[in-house]
């Protein structure tokens, strides 16, 4: 029985899948804190869908998929910023229009240029069949995102809490906004391979939301979210071997399950704790 549990570690593809899922999970989890506090969950959703046409075009032109995906994400972000600033349309409608347009375009391109990129791979990810060069791309993205957060994370946090104070301290909230967009798009690109374009949004929101319920300190929230992302990434990939199911689905479902447990039992902000506090007050 015990030996059976170690079986996934015997296979090279499983070891790689678990390592990559844990890495992407950690990076996306860390970033999810900023996304949740900025109120940008929808933006993450939009970017992760908007990168799809970039993947297809990159394949057609013959450049690394990450570059095409990233360019498409940035283009979508620019389109959203432009529409928001120049039209009276509200932000949620702008996001909805842009990301469905990009996603639709991606699906359309895929249908008229039959390629070896399978729709399933883009939408749902395929971490088990991941190519070496893709692993390199994802590792580079992860290092760049982590380095950017290590260097500018405090300013980014201040821009979310009190942008005016950032200006007073000599920073630029506009630059921090762009930084967060870029990091978000880059992480969405990395997550695309691991869990797919749809589920990456779960990795970019759920760990942060879970950690937010567990602590009142940003540092701890960031650590918890990164940890949750890494552990669920690893366990999700590991579990999918036995369940014979989708790796992405398994990772994000695990995160969702953890969120529900925390939502109910969190020591201070959980449903039970809030009820207890209300009873004591009454």
């Amino acid at each position, binding site marked *: 029985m015990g030996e059976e549990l170690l079986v996934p570690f015997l296979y090279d593809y499983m070891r790689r899948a678990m390592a990559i899922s844990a890495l992407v999970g950690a990076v996306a989890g860390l970033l999810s804190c900023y996304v949740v506090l900025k109120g940008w969950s929808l933006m993450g959703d939009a970017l992760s869908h908007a990168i799809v046409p970039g993947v297809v075009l990159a394949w057609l032109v013959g450049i690394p998929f990450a570059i095409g995906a990233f360019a498409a994400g940035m283009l979508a972000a620019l389109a959203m910023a432009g529409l928001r600033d120049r039209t009276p349309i509200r932000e949620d409608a702008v996001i909805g229009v842009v990301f469905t347009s990009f996603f639709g375009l991606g699906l359309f391109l895929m249908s008229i240029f039959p390629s070896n990129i399978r729709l399933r791979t883009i939408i749902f990810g395929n971490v088990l069949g991941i190519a070496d060069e893709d692993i390199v791309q994802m590792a580079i993205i992860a290092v760049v995102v982590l380095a950017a957060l290590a260097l500018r994370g405090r300013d980014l946090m201040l821009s979310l809490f009190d942008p005016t*104070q*950032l200006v007073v*301290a000599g920073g630029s909230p506009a630059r921090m906004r762009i930084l967060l967009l870029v990091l978000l798009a880059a992480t969405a690109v990395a997550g695309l391979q691991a869990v797919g374009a749809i589920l990456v949004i779960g990795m970019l929101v759920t760990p942060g939301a879970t950690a937010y319920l567990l602590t009142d300190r940003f540092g701890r929230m960031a650590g918890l979210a990164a940890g949750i992302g890494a552990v669920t990434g690893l366990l999700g990939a590991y579990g999918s071997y036995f369940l014979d199911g989708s790796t992405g689905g398994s990772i994000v479902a695990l995160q969702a399950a953890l969120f529900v447990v925390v939502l109910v039992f969190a020591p201070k902000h959980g449903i039970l704790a809030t009820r207890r506090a209300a009873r004591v007050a009454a």
Partner: protein
Amino acid sequence: MLAQPISLAVEAISVAYPNGHLALKDAGFTLGAGTICGLVGINGSGKSTMFKSIMGLVRPARGRVLIAGGPVEAALKRNLVAYVPQAEEVDWSFPVSVRDVVMMGRYGHMNLLRIPRAVDRREVTAALERVGMADLAERQIGELSGGQRKRVFLARALAQGGQLLLLDEPFTGVDVTTEESIITLLKALRDEGRIILVSTHNLGSVPTFCDQVVLVNRTVLAAGPTSEVFTGPNLLRAFGGALRQHSLPGATPLPADAVIVLSDDERPLVMAPDGQVMGRLPRDI
């Protein structure tokens, strides 16, 4: 210590927003060190645009702002300008502690990585003690009362070493006792030579703590010592129809035309008919 005492000169600035809205036109006033000045006007009169111009968030189309004799950017670099936001602008559920918020005042003194050094920690602790919040330093900011919340942001301004403090509507949603204790603190900070500019539409509290008043309505209508500027006719010009004027009913010990009560917000102002400020009422009538 500063090479020269702090000063603020707003020289005939005009500010227009991209949508063509002219928020301020030819607005100017000057303040010297050791002053508490009320920036008084209705909502939409250009108070916040004035603040934004002083903090360099908007650039005047004409005119200029000089802080300590130099441009705004230089003053920001020297961390001279500190800002205390309105309570409604702050996300009180944000996962930061009181100490974290006060430490944000030190960011301008740190290097690009914003890693606190010993001097930063010392300044934060000193500022927390100064405003009487040292015991609550580890609390999440949402767990504080209205007055404590204000003190946290004042401590941040102190930790920053700000010499020009901008307070945006500091007394909204704060009870009178708390207001008085904050005013005591502001007066102590003034006596150390700081300039404290307080934007408010709460008329009743202005004469109790402001040495100077700047009345704004799309421009500076009047500026100077409170006793000269904060008068009935000036206030009526600044507030126009937004001001409610009551005469006390005849049942009071005073004759019906003995006082005028001006009220925009929760704390009405009582004036003699000649425009002399007599005091304020604890509640609206």
